[in-house]
């Protein structure tokens, strides 16, 4: 449970930051920023999360081995939680970027013009006019993306499973009860995921109420 929450919390923070920057990046007039954001969104949305996670865990480890460990004689291992958080944040960040972009797009052009004509600079317009409105509009779709982080974190199981398999093999060699240990672990994880999904639904419901009363 601790690990799941840990992964969830960090992925949430990173993907929110990524999503907001990327959403802003996709709506600016600066061409290279826009190209970068579009590239990021398209790449990470069109590759299965499973593949990204395995890439971040196993693929990256080989790069680290070749680039750092072998020449320097170190033994740096990428922790599976790190790979998980990396992949989940990048994946969810791309989706959140799209949500933020549509939020910013929904602010009428007239507001930009009004802000400029009343003497606000570009940065001031973003900070005082556009973002406060856009970020409130996107709360409901964002909440469902947050829920998706929890659901998608189940995929983290697949890169942790090699450890679990490894240990259950060890246990089996010693006690011949590996299957039981493995099943217990899986069931526990399953229960926790469902609990977390329930909790997020609750939060989403509360958020939904709040948004409605505020509007």
């Amino acid at each position, binding site marked *: 449970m601790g690990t799941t929450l840990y992964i969830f919390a960090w992925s949430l923070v990173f993907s929110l930051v990524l999503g907001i920057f990327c959403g802003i990046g996709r709506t600016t007039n600066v061409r290279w920023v826009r190209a970068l954001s579009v590239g990021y969104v398209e790449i990470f949305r069109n590759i299965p999360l499973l*593949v990204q996670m395995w890439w971040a865990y196993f693929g990256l480890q080989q790069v680290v081995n070749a680039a750092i460990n072998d020449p320097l004689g170190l033994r740096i291992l990428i922790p599976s939680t790190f790979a998980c958080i990396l992949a989940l944040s990048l994946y969810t960040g791309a989706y959140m970027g799209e*949500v933020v972009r549509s939020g910013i797009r929904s602010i009428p052009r007239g507001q930009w013009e009004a802000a400029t004509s009343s003497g606000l600079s570009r940065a001031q317009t973003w900070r005082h006019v556009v973002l406060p409105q856009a970020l409130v509009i996107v709360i409901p779709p964002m909440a469902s993306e947050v829920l998706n982080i929890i*659901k998608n974190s189940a995929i983290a199981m697949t890169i942790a499973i090699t450890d679990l398999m490894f240990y259950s093999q060890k246990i089996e060699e010693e006690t011949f009860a590996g299957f039981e240990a493995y099943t217990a672990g899986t069931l526990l994880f399953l229960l926790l995921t469902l609990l977390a999904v329930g909790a997020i639904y609750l939060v989403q419901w509360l958020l939904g109420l709040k948004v409605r009363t505020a509007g």
Partner: protein
Amino acid sequence: MESFWKWHVIPENLGFFASGFRLTLTIFVLAWVGCWVFAVIFGALRHSARPWLRYPAAAVVEIIRGTPGLMFIVWVYFLSQPLIGYALSPFWAAVWALMIHQGAYAAEVVRAGLSSVPRGQVAAGYSTGLGYVEVMGFIVLPQALRNMAPAVVNRSVALFKNTSLAFVIGVIEFFRAGTIVNGRENASFSVFTFIAAVYFVCCFSLSRLGNRLGQRPGVIEDTTAV
């Protein structure tokens, strides 16, 4: 020192990758068809005016949508024996699970599409003497489908990405083929980069299609990260 730059394993195992990709495509096509059958039935039920049809359908869809796809595949595979008394093969378990899981998301698309057609048009259809099938077939569906088209494509991309989850119950589809090659050659960087690139090309070209269909007012957006 061992290099991570081992691209030679890709051409050497190309036949194996190709067989995995064929299986991925087969799962995708079968699950895609089933997914939209499921979606149309449940979307129509959720859109129905009768509460005894609407609420059970809503419950089914919401419960499935609240479950991670990976868990769903594992459940269908391991619970098929106690539940329906017949042990599904990994392949069919994956097809059924993906079909029902993505079908629940797709049902939401269908429902949104049906509600995007103004109620007045349905009422007008009935008042000119058309029956349910005619109102649906001639008035609601043609308009709903046009609004749904980009979301349908997005769902298909999601389904294609999710076929990789079938690897967890031992179906040797494209991703599992990759993990097997990696286990043999110890070339995770090259293998997983190759796999990611192939998935990207497939999904990106599909989602381009969606973008060409979309980009006009009234269209339903569906950007769920599942």
